[in-house]
């Protein structure tokens, strides 16, 4: 009896858990097949998400970046929103092209920003690939296992890069190197796959733990 009282959604905390459980079952039901129960929660999910984003959109962006500077008297900002509203012409046959002016700004900006992205993302990776001695000499103090790893690094890198060339036919040696590159690629992909299985299983375990422990109140381990 006590168990039942504590099990039923009679407090806010229990209600929270019950809603969570219903949501979980609704989502999991698609594993069997698409069904009205899932469809109901899918539509609710999208509706909630769309509604939720309005708050941050209006307050954290429009108010903060547009209304606030205007109230402080920075008049130049007043042009931004009417300009951005040109975007809303996309549904119009006649004025549709005006939205492309705004899109042009967005495309130009993302192109211009890509230089910095390239420099801060790819270049450090290039830099850190440069100091890899391939043999022990009097000038360096690499250990032999590092030498081995460095060889692997260079060979793998170059053969995968070779696979990713497009403007000439892969023939002879190049073809063979590219094939190896493809195999090395598969090693990398397999490693990523194996590593992710664990994380995703852990997520599912977390959910099932929620069902067993929080909802059904079965004690598991230490707490």
């Amino acid at each position: 009896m006590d168990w039942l009282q504590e099990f039923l959604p009679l407090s806010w905390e229990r209600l929270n858990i019950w809603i969570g459980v219903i949501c979980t079952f609704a989502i999991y039901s698609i594993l069997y097949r698409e069904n009205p129960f899932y469809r109901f929660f899918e539509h609710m999910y999208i509706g909630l998400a769309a509604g939720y984003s309005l708050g941050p959109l209006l307050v954290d962006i429009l108010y903060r970046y547009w209304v606030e500077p205007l109230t402080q008297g920075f008049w130049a900002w007043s042009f931004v929103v009417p300009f951005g509203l040109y975007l809303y012409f996309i549904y119009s046959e006649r004025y549709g092209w005006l939205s492309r002016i705004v899109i042009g700004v967005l495309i130009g900006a993302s192109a211009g920003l890509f230089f910095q992205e390239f420099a801060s993302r790819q270049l450090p990776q290039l830099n850190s690939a440069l100091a890899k001695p391939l043999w022990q000499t009097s000038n360096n103090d690499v250990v032999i296992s590092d030498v081995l790893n460095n060889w692997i690094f260079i060979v793998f890198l170059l053969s995968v890069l070779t696979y990713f060339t497009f403007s000439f036919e892969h023939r002879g040696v190049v073809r063979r190197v590219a094939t190896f590159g493809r195999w090395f690629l598969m090693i990398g992909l397999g490693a990523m796959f194996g590593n992710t299985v664990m994380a995703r299983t852990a997520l599912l375990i977390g959910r099932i733990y929620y069902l067993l422990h929080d909802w059904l109140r079965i004690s598991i381990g230490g707490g």
Partner: protein
Amino acid sequence: MQTRQPAVWDRMLAIDRRILYLLLFVNIVVFLLLPVQLKAVISPPARKFYNAIEKLQTGDLVMVSSNWSASTIAENKPQLEAVLHHLMRKKVRFTIMSVEAQARDLSYRIAQRIAKEYGYEYGKDWAHLGFYVNLIVAIKGMTTDLPATVKQDVEGTPVSQLEVLKGVRTLADYKMVIDVTPSGTMPLWVSYRPKGLIVLFCPTSVMAAEAYTFLDSGQVEGMLTGAKGAQEYEQLLKIKGQGAIFANCIQFSHVLIILTILLGNIAMFLSRHAREG
């Protein structure tokens, strides 16, 4: 025209995926409930983690940065619990901080529960400093002026009234930071911490691979990898926790997946053999 029943292996190859889903689900439920536990082999990063905390003195101050929420509960919760057990066993004072509300609530609740076991007094021996959306700004702020950055704890008590923070000017007054996280927050601690602050890291398993460079260079002193790391740590502390259960559960799911993959391959070869033979 089907003249004979399809062979077992042909049926295995065309198995309904829902049977697989059920297998996985049942497998996890069973191993969550069954007390089957394999002993873990302690990995060097976990051993180093343990030794680093062992070296702390009674009364030292530690920052626990707990940033996980419901999704990664199976990996991060046992880590946080084991770490808190160790800190309190060493009679070390600590404060907790998070980057978002859910992480704050979870870590606060867990710390309250464990504190009760050890007779830790809130405000005097430990405190929860709430959440900080921008971690870089928070770390930088705490490095220059901690009270001004924190202002108040999770319950709204001003910093000046928290005994645990008495005399603390900046993050440099701390001995150590322990980052329990599913995301890439550790490099931020490494880059922006004050000199000499020890960093310990409790990532989820996917994030662990990227951390080895930091371990090799000594910027991170120890690491617990996901539920497996928590299990190793529970073993070191000789406590019964959920790390062992979750790690075993993940492990047996892996075994299940590997076994079915192998069976699938055997079935493929047999089916091919039958067709050719």
